């Protein structure tokens, strides 16, 4: 498989505030992530992991530097164009699940397809299929409040998958879960990466979780300190 770069950060800085109180959340970061990689980002609190994820996810614009996503220069895009990019190529999994309350799992998973103007019947099929992938098709009509944390996170993963994204970004996806459930979730991500070839970038505080990834990036003070790739396990 010829590996192609999906994420190319070039001398990226993200500065919050100005002058004395300016915080350099990202400090001249260079990073390339290839298609099909499963990357974990670790680092102390405040080291800029979430900021990096937001930039990669086209939710935030860097203060300086170049960012190419799938070959597209993101810096020149408008807010709406970035929305289109997210809709088409990106899936998000958050620490707090971020499902719509009082909305069934199925409707939650359908949401990205609504914005892609997919017809209803097709949308429901795709959503059911995504729920099946995360093993929750019987819970399709349950509200988030009727689901456990692990189940909610699986719904969130289904929502990230449903539009067939190129990259799934997961910022501390197991941060709110117990160890057993965390392992379930991380194994699901690993499975999606290995069997479906999904590119996954994940922030985590837990070494155990990071071990599932094949590449580990260590951040300190807005810079990448270490970047280790381990050979793909058989």
């Amino acid at each position: 498989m010829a590996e192609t770069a999906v994420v190319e950060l070039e001398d990226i800085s993200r500065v919050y505030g100005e002058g004395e109180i300016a915080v350099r959340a990202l400090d001249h970061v260079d990073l390339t992530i290839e298609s099909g990689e499963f990357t974990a980002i670790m680092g102390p609190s405040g080291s800029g992991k979430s900021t990096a994820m937001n930039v990669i996810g086209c939710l935030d614009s860097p203060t300086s530097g170049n960012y190419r996503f799938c070959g597209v220069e993101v810096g020149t895009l408008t807010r709406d164009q970035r929305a289109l990019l997210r809709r088409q190529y990106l899936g998000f999994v958050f620490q707090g699940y971020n499902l719509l309350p009082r909305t069934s799992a199925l409707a939650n998973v359908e949401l990205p397809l609504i914005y892609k103007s997919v017809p209803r019947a097709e949308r429901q099929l795709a959503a059911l299929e995504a729920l099946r992938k995360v093993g929750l098709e019987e819970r399709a009509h349950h509200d988030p409040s009727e689901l456990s944390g692990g189940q909610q996170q699986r719904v969130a993963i289904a929502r990230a998958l449903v539009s067939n994204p190129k990259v799934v970004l997961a910022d501390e996806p197991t941060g709110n879960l117990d160890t057993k459930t965390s392992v379930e979730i991380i194994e699901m991500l690993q499975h999606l990466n290995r069997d479906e070839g999904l590119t996954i970038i994940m922030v985590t505080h837990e070494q155990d979780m990071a071990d599932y990834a094949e590449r580990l990036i260590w951040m300190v003070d807005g810079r990448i300190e270490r970047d280790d790739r381990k050979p793909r396990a058989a």
Partner: protein
Amino acid sequence: MLWETVRLAIQAIFRNTMRSLLTVLGIVIGVAAVIAMVTVGQGSTAQVTADVEKLGTNVVMVMPGQDVMQGGPGGTAAKMFSIRMNDEVQDQIPDVAISAPISQTRARVIFGNENRRTDVVGTDNRYFEAARWELLRGRFFETGEIQSGRTVCIIGETVRQSLFGNSDPIGETVRVKTLSCEIVGLLKSKGASTFGSDQDDFVILPLKTYHRRIAGNTEVLAFYISVRDGASVEDTMEEITLLMRDLRRIGRGEEDDFEVLDMKQFATMLSGITGILTGLLSAVAAVSLLVGGIGIMNIMLVSVTERTREIGIRLAIGAQARQVLLQFLVEAVILSLIGGLIGIGLGLGFAILGAKWLSIPFTPDFSVILLAFGFSALVGVIFGYFPARRAARLDPIEALRHE
């Protein structure tokens, strides 16, 4: 996409039904008020038109003074008419079929132990013809009675009921002020007029009798004129005006000191009053729609704040600003349309009750209903726009971090 948005909006609204209902209360009240008032107003206009038609569209009244509708006949200091003037009008204008002189006052009529304050009218048989009164019993006046001013009278149905109950009034003698007169006729009931007054509540005397025994003068209060069939009422009124100016010696450039009104003007005058009422109500409606709109804006702003996280999620997964804007705008519009619908329903309900109570026809006007509906939508758009724009401009990262 739009249909999807509508579906989502309806879901969002019914997720909090109670609050949504309270939100639209202002619009409900505004729309209900307008619908009820306009419908009742149109019902009463229809009633007026029907009544005027019954009276005859060829009826013209001449009264002394100006703006008599405001001051009431004789309310102004203008000098009264005379019988001679009435007869001149009758004789000199070919298109005047009948001109009946009328004088009138309020007085107590007594029979035995019963008594009633009523209108005592002095006129002659021409009035019965012009105003299309029919007899239920007895007869009209005889020429001799009119000429010599005999003490006879003809009464309306209401007076009969009040004084005689079930017994026959013909031939009985009633007292009007100091005068005792024999009842020779009973008129067939016409019922209540549009103006709310009971048309059957009167006693009619020959004009001469009235002048001598009741008024103590020979003044005439008004002419009740019926225009010949096929003649132009307008032209005839013009002729009457010219003749009256001549008879009352009003010089060139001087104002009329009398007024010539036809039934159409009565109706116009009435709808003028209705117009003022409608204007007033429109103001009330506008205010309550404004208040309703602000209510919607308020709740939508609260909703945007409450749902900041939801907006963040939507933006993150690829919703564009205008899609979020549309979502909240549609929600506001549907909310106010629901308010409008409830208001229309309530308004029509009140109109039905009102029509029953006022015994006027219930005439719902589709265009007014449509207008009210459109107005509700407009309120939704106007007052929903600001909150929706706020939602659309949220930064996804900050919105996701909310709470």
